[in-house]
Each structure stands twice: as structure tokens, then as C-alpha cells.
């Protein structure tokens, strides 16, 4: 969702629309009876609320500010939650960092259990779960002989990436998700949106935790 009223031009557009609706109510009332005008006004208000809601859906395109490193070190930003310790992700991290002096930041968004929990900031449990997963993944990355640090991110993965890019001069971003049929991030277009907004190479790693468990 975004605010549909962001500038004077938006306010003017709404003023014209509301003015037009009011003229129709006035004309109808003067031609018939006030109760007809009231019913028409109620219908217009309902329609207007619906239009406003539809117009407010989705995110606005935006630019993400980047911090650039200048020391020749390869910096990899890894964004993952439940799949943060997945085998495919670890393989991809190892391949990306092979033969280079690397620095890795693992960002694990704290996913609230429900929309209500998100709005009520009831995310303590989500943060704790994210921290546990992140720490396990840092150990696994360390076992690959790579240096990594971790952070708990915003529950919106795109916002978590944006926050991380403000302090971490990433050269590449890896987003790890479940397979398409089970991934809420893919359903919400997290990877596509990141590619639209961020001018960095963005890799997408699919981690099938069930297959990982079967192998182990």
C-alpha cells in the first residue's frame, strides 16, 4: 500500500473528482428529492473509497541509495529467512566468493506470524527465530572458510535489503527463497522488485529444505 495523496497535483485531482461528484448529487437532489441525493452520494462515496483503495495498492517505483566500497574487497549481501542455512545457498556463497577476498553480510528479515502481529509490532518471537537461524548460517558459512556477519532485518525483505545497503557496500545480492510453489517472497515479487529498484547484480537461490533434509 502507498499513500495516494502525495502532492498538490494529487490533491487537485481529488478536489476535481469530489467536485464533479457533488455537482451530480446537487443536480439529482434539485431534480428529485433529497433522499435520492443522499443515496447517490452514499453510492459515490463507496465508489470513491474503492477507487482510492485500488489506486493505493502496490509500491511506488523508487531509487535505492547505495554505499560503494573502494578497497577492492568483494562484498556479498545474503538475504534469507527460513532458507538461510540451505545447502544450495551455501554452495552459491562459496562459488561467489571463491578466490576473492570477501566480506559477507547475512540479513535475516524477522517475519511476523501474521499481519496483525506486524501492525502491533508483536515481533519478539520472530526476531528470536530469525536470530537463531542466522547464527546457525554464520557457523555454516564460517565452516566454508569465509568471514560473515549477520543482522536481523525489517520484516519487509525489500526494506531489509535497502536498510542493509545503506551501511554495507555490497557488490552483489543473493536472495534465497523456498521453491516457487511454497515461497511467499516470490508470490509477493520480492526478487523482481529488488531487481527493479537496485542497480546491482541480484542472484536468486532456490532452497528446497525438504530435499536438503532427505539428503542429510
Amino acid at each position, binding site marked *: 500500500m502507498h499513500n495516494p495523496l502525495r502532492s498538490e497535483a494529487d490533491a487537485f485531482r481529488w*478536489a476535481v473528482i469530489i467536485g464533479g461528484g457533488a455537482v451530480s448529487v446537487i443536480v439529482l437532489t434539485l431534480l428529485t428529492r433529497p433522499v435520492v441525493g443522499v443515496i447517490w452520494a452514499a453510492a459515490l462515496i463507496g465508489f470513491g473509497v474503492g477507487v482510492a483503495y485500488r489506486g493505493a495498492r502496490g509500491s511506488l517505483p523508487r531509487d535505492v541509495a547505495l554505499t560503494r566500497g573502494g578497497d577492492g574487497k568483494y562484498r556479498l549481501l545474503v538475504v534469507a529467512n527460513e532458507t538461510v542455512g540451505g545447502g544450495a545457498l551455501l554452495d552459491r556463497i562459496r562459488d561467489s566468493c571463491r578466490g576473492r577476498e570477501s566480506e559477507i553480510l547475512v540479513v535475516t528479515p524477522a517475519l511476523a506470524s501474521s499481519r496483525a502481529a506486524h501492525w502491533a509490532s508483536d515481533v519478539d518471537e520472530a526476531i528470536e527465530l530469525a536470530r537463531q537461524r542466522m547464527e546457525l548460517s554464520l557457523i555454516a558459512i564460517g565452516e566454508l572458510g569465509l568471514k560473515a556477519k549477520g543482522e536481523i532485518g525489517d520484516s519487509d525483505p525489500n526494506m531489509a535489503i535497502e536498510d542493509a545497503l545503506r551501511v554495507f557496500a555490497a557488490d552483489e545480492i543473493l536472495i534465497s527463497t523456498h521453491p516457487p510453489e511454497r515461497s511467499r517472497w516470490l508470490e509477493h515479487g520480492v526478487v523482481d522488485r529488488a531487481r527493479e529498484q537496485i542497480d546491482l547484480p541480484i542472484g536468486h537461490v532456490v532452497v528446497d529444505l525438504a530435499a536438503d533434509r532427505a539428503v542429510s
Partner: protein
Amino acid sequence: MESATVALGHAHGEEQHGPPEANQSSRMDRQTLGILLFIVSEVMLFGAFFASYFFLRVVVHPSSWPPHPYELPVAVAGVNTAILVSSSFTIHYALSSIRRGNRTGLKLGLVLTWLLGATFLFIQINEYVHLGFSARDLAFGSIFYGLTGLHGAHVFVGLVLLSFASIRAFRGHFGPEEKDHLGVEVPGIYWHFVDVMWIIVYTTVYIL
């Protein structure tokens, strides 16, 4: 570590030293966000007055509204509504002009908006003088003057804001860049709000 801020959509070669700009999670400038939050609070204020109005109209005086023998000057208020509505177009013209770098258009739009707003207020005060009832006459009089007076006070505040914007415009302030004409943008948003509220007040109180 050497670092530089690069905003996408701009040349990456133009790197500058220093930390990135502070993040604005609202993704809006502070002034615009401030006026929008203020307008939200104003909508609640008007909502309280409208709740009183409908309570009085539906529950207290269900048989006839306005109560006999009072009458409202629908035609005069209609002309006044047209005047105020047209001022939304002039303030929009002012802002469209400055976005194109047309300072003359900005000044013309602001002065016209101010004059139309002042005319609206003058006609409303004149209407009060000739109505034939006061705020003491029944609950009807109280809510009529309360609602229209509340709106009139907002028009007055809008005129004060437009006065400041006009003075600044004549002193050569404001430019085409978005950040350079917030001093007109913010009063403009407020003025459209005042306009929309009057459309609702007029339709509700005078017509329905």
C-alpha cells in the same frame, strides 16, 4: 573504508564522499507529510461537527429541515461555492506555472487564489449578516454557524498561508525543483482540502 552515495537513475561516476542521505521511511518530505497528518486531524474535527449535524437533523428535527421559518440562501451560497471551487484551479495553475519555471504565472495564480478566497469569506460574512437567525436560535442555528464558521476559520487560515506564499513569490523565492516550491505546495494542498470541505458542507447543509 572509502564510501560514496550513488542514487540510482543518476550517473554512477558522480560519486561523492560521505555517508548516504538519511533514510525517510515515509518516502515523503517532512513538510508534505506534516500537512497531510494535519489534514487527517482536521477531517476528524469536521467529522465531529458533521456527526452533530446529522444527529440534530435526523434525531432532533426529523420532520422539517431547516426548521420553520428558517431558510438558507441556496443560490448565493452556490455562487460562493463556485468562487471557492475556481480558486482550486487558480492555485493549481500557480503550482503548474512554477513547476515550468513561470514565475509570473505563479504570482498571478497566488494573487487570484487569494482574491477568490477573500471574496468567498466576504460573501459568507455578508450572508451571516442577512440570514435572519443567529447561533442562539435553536440547535439548528448553532450547528449551522458552527459548521460553516469552522470552515470559514479554515479559509481564513488558508488566506494567511497564501499571503505568506504570495509575499515570498513576489520576493523571488521558489523555483521549478520540487524542493524549491514546498512553500506553495503545502498551502496548495491545504487549500484543496478547504475547498473539498466546503463542497461537502454546501452539499450537506444547503442542498440535501
